[in-house]
């Protein structure tokens, strides 16, 4: 060190010259430390790490988490059922109709004064059939989210399989498969949905007590409608992706290494269209929720008394002047879910696209 310092030209007080004595030579050990590879991560873990650095995505995950906890926990705590007309002391409370949020009916007030016991408040009031509205909104969210999720999964599975086969095979098979898609695509979907749900509603009868019966005929017919109609755009999207990815030289390179088709699809093609798949699934859920709302709106959605956000909004139309909150709450719920899912989809796409890595 000393010899180094001696060689240094004299440093003037004001000069910006770097003081070399502050820069010690790295020892071999330190150099070796630099050489050690940083922790290797998988593509998935890396993407997740980036996702959690995105404030909007984290916010929407948190919001969706809160909604999820709410729809699971709330029905356990609240002593009212979604189809249950409010009873006070075992008697039907006819006065509990269209209550405002946190309002008690006369009977309830009398009961509370008499016994001193505190009844659970109607957080969002009640509807015109004297049912607790909060519980109905919670159940409606449950139903809508379930429909959105399952419908998207059905669409994803059918579209992914169909699209990747068509795209990977190419040639004549692709031609035929895509014409079928075109035909389905050209059908007027709303008309088909309405016809299908009418027919299915009559035909689908399940033994009471089974899982399918619990789900309800309408919900199942909605799934079938989605499965039959909405996979086409997913299939098209995935086929297009695979066609363009297949042309890349890295797929050829993988073949020249000796990788088998299954490995090529798994390791090269799927990861490269993953972001597109993720975002379209995330966007499929709100679109399914919308479709379900629409169907409920025209009376073909889930059957009463089972609520969904769409049918709640539809029912609230009648008294919109007197009880606007009954439209506002399901509408807010739809907005929050759709917005969070869209933001989450965006965040996922950014996180899993290494070209946007920072």
């Amino acid at each position, binding site marked *: 060190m000393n010899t180094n310092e001696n060689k240094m030209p004299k440093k003037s007080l004001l000069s910006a010259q770097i003081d070399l004595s502050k820069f010690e030579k790295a020892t071999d050990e330190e150099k070796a430390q*630099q*050489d*050690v*590879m*940083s*922790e*290797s*991560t998988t*593509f998935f873990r890396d993407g997740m790490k980036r996702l959690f650095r995105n404030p909007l995505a984290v916010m929407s995950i948190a919001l969706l988490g809160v909604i999820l906890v709410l729809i699971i926990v709330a029905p356990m705590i609240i002593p009212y059922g979604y189809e249950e007309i409010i009873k006070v002391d075992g008697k039907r409370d006819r006065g509990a109709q269209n209550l405002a949020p946190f309002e008690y009916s006369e009977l309830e007030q009398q009961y509370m004064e008499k016994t001193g016991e505190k009844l659970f408040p109607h957080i969002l009031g009640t509807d015109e059939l004297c049912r607790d509205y909060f519980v109905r909104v919670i159940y409606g969210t449950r139903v809508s989210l379930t429909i959105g999720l399952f419908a998207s999964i059905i669409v994803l599975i059918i579209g992914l399989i169909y699209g990747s086969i068509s795209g990977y095979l190419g040639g004549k098979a692709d031609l035929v498969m895509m014409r079928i898609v075109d035909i389905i695509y050209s059908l007027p979907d709303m008309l088909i949905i309405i016809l299908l749900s009418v027919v299915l509603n009559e035909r689908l009868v399940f033994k009471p007590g089974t899982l399918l019966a619990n789900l309800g005929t309408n919900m199942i017919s909605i799934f079938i409608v989605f499965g039959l109609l909405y996979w086409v755009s997913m299939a098209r999207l995935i086929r297009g992706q695979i066609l363009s990815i297949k042309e*890349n*030289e*890295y797929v*050829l*390179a*993988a*073949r*020249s*290494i*000796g*990788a088998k088709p299954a*490995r090529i699809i798994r*390791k*090269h093609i799927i*990861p*490269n269209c*993953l972001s597109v798949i993720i975002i379209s699934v995330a966007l499929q859920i709100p679109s399914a929720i919308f479709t379900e709302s629409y169907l409920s709106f025209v009376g073909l959605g889930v059957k009463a008394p089972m609520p969904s956000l769409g049918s709640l909004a539809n029912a609230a139309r009648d008294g919109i002047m007197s009880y606007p909150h009954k439209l506002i709450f399901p509408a807010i719920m739809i907005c929050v879910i759709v917005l969070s899912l869209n933001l989450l989809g965006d965040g996922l796409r950014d996180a899993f696209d*290494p*070209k946007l*890595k920072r």
Partner: protein
Amino acid sequence: MSDILLEVKDLKQHFPIRTGFFKKTPLKAVDGVSFTIGKGETLGLVGESGCGKTTVGRSILRLYEPTAGQVFFDGEEVTGHNIQAMRKKMQMVFQDPYSSLDPRMTVEDIIGEPLDVHNLYSNKKERREKILELMNYVGLNSEHATRYAHEFSGGQRQRIGIARALAVDPQFIVCDEPVSALDVSIQAQVINMFEELQEKLGVAYLFIAHDLLVVHHISKRIAVMYLGKIVELADADELNENPLHPYTQSLLSAVPIPDPDIARSRQRIVLEGDVPSPLHMPSGCPFRTRCQYATEQCALECPTLTDRGNGHLSACFNR
């Protein structure tokens, strides 16, 4: 001759191209190519863009199913059955360093993929050591192992591609214009690296380029291609000093010469017209539409590649 590593016999690769509503015409990308490459040797392959160089390389590795012809590696014919084993011995470095690396993979996984496919390690630690060694070979910093390929410059990407090709310890590598997408200064580095690797590992190269200077620098022998055929094949120096085929002469006349005296004395041959489309090949000699020596015979027959002494092969009637 036991030191022959690769022998290509009359290789043909025709792509059916839709030319009408029902009609399909074969596009003769490679049309009867034969050559041999010795162990640890480099054969240069030059030619204009679109003459079928890449297709030759890919057909040898059976990335395309060849229309006709045979490829022998170390005396054994390469077929669809033994190709998996052959891919441990023959590898390829691709033309475009940008699209030949999967953007979703880290450098470590790209280089490690051949190891994964052929089960060339027993545990994670060994895999990593091998990858580090390979990165070291091609002059990549080991810190970069967990980065994604798009974060690298063209030259570094090409090094990644080379490391991937070296991973299975091949005896033969097709280098498909590995430097033409790179800056001139980096070209030199990468070419020197290819030479060093050859000295160290004894691999043979089929070195494809469209630049005669580059090929002359690295190759022992050079083959010149035109429209899917080899028109001349000779030792690098011999070809440079004594080109026989008119096409090679015109190519050489376009190469800049540093010595002004020689440059002045040399006659510049400027080719007229465009390369004919491989869909509509001229009859007879493929070069006749642009050849200044063309005679009637050239339109009728196709000249074959014949020895003009000293292993200097040329396909021309008049030269």
